[in-house]
């Protein structure tokens, strides 16, 4: 590296800030075009730093430190503030995300609780219905079982009489019929139960044959709904049954 000699002394003065006016402008103009002199200027600044260190010795009073810290605390601190804003923004975002997550979790927990309650309710309902169904099945099995023993209580010393009991619910068209002490049927004949409406023709309500004890049941025969029953009757019909009574009823119901 070779420093231009005509600028050598002036570079030192320039580094010291001692040049003014034309001398200074001349050096600055040269520095723009001369990398060697620019590098030499940097080295001269290092030399000046060595000279500055020669002043080393005294330490500043402790109050200077506190004064500086206080002064810094009063500074706007663009970067720090910016960072703090970013931090705050990020923290706010994290809090928002956390809050959203908590909200979702709470909603899910609540939904889960509702679902659990709903399931529990359904389960309880199902259990209740199952119990009712079991009771109904048990009742029906008892009524319809061939092994069931039937007793008909009548007045003392009175001979057993044929009896029938029809339980009917018009709104659903549900009918349960129980009979006992029925006479044995002739061959190729059957008993047919009739629903006698308050108006209109008798409606077939099921075919049945009594067992060896004269007992019989008809459970839920197909009937139209909403038909008011005036009474029920039993006729003896051909084995395949009839659409309308073809014989005189052997039994007619009375309400009660």
């Amino acid at each position, binding site marked *: 590296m070779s420093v231009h000699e005509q600028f*050598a*002394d*002036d*570079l*030192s*003065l320039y580094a*010291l*800030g*001692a*040049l*003014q006016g034309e001398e200074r402008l001349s050096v600055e103009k040269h520095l723009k075009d001369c990398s060697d002199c620019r590098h030499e200027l*940097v*080295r*001269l*600044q*290092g*030399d*000046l*730093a*060595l*000279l*500055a*260190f*020669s*002043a*080393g*010795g*005294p*330490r*500043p*009073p402790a*109050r*200077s*430190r506190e*004064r*500086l*810290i206080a*002064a*810094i*605390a009063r*500074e706007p*601190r663009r*970067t*720090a*503030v910016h*960072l*703090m804003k970013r931090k705050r923004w990020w923290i706010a975002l994290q809090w928002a995300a956390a809050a959203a997550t908590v909200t979702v979790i709470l909603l899910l927990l609540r939904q889960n609780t509702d679902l659990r309650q709903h399931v529990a309710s359904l389960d309880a309902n199902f259990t209740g219905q199952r119990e009712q169904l079991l009771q109904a099945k048990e009742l029906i099995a008892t009524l319809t079982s061939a092994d069931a023993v039937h007793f008909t209580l009548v007045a003392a010393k009175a001979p057993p009489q044929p009896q029938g009991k029809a339980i009917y619910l018009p709104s659903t068209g549900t009918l349960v019929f129980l009979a006992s002490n029925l006479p044995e049927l002739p061959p190729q004949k059957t008993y047919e139960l009739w629903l006698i409406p308050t108006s209109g023709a008798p409606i077939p309500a099921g075919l049945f044959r009594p067992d060896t004890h004269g007992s019989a049941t008809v459970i839920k025969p197909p009937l139209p709904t909403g038909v008011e029953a005036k009474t029920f009757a039993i006729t003896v019909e051909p084995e395949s049954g009839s659409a309308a009574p073809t014989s005189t009823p052997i039994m007619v119901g009375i309400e009660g």
Partner: protein
Amino acid sequence: MSRAASNVVSPDAMLVSAIRSGDEQAMVLLYERYSSIVYSVALRVLGETGAAEDILQEVFLQLWRSADGFDATRGSLPGWLAVITRNRAIDSLRKRRPEADITDVIGSIEPDFVGAAESSRALEKIRGTLGGMPPPQRAALEMAFFDGLTHTEIAEKTGEPLGTIKTRIRAGLLTLRKAFNP
């Protein structure tokens, strides 16, 4: 100390980076490390503790505000602070506004004085080198640097030719340089 060595990220570089991020603790650490250099230079120039404290505050506050202006990976932070302090103190001595923001004054200082600045041995070496200079040379150098006199003012004060003063100043600086880069 080589340029290559100064390219390694120094603790100073990390401190300056932290200061850029607004880390007050980093600023305190840097103050603890270099306040003595800054205060000594300011006191040497101004000769008054109160004024030196003011310059101390000014330099470190300016560093806090404009840490971007110094690339600590490229040079010596204490060297940079020392020269900045001297320039500010001279401006104060002459009751003039700072001629430039510190960030415009120096981009880097070679060599890296981090180790040397903290070493009393280095200080002894500098003082020994100055003590070994011809008195007129040392006087010209110190009047230019610590008193802020121009070469013209020094020439007038000493009665020496202007060219002689210029040469003495440059020669004195090269002598210091040679002491650390033989």
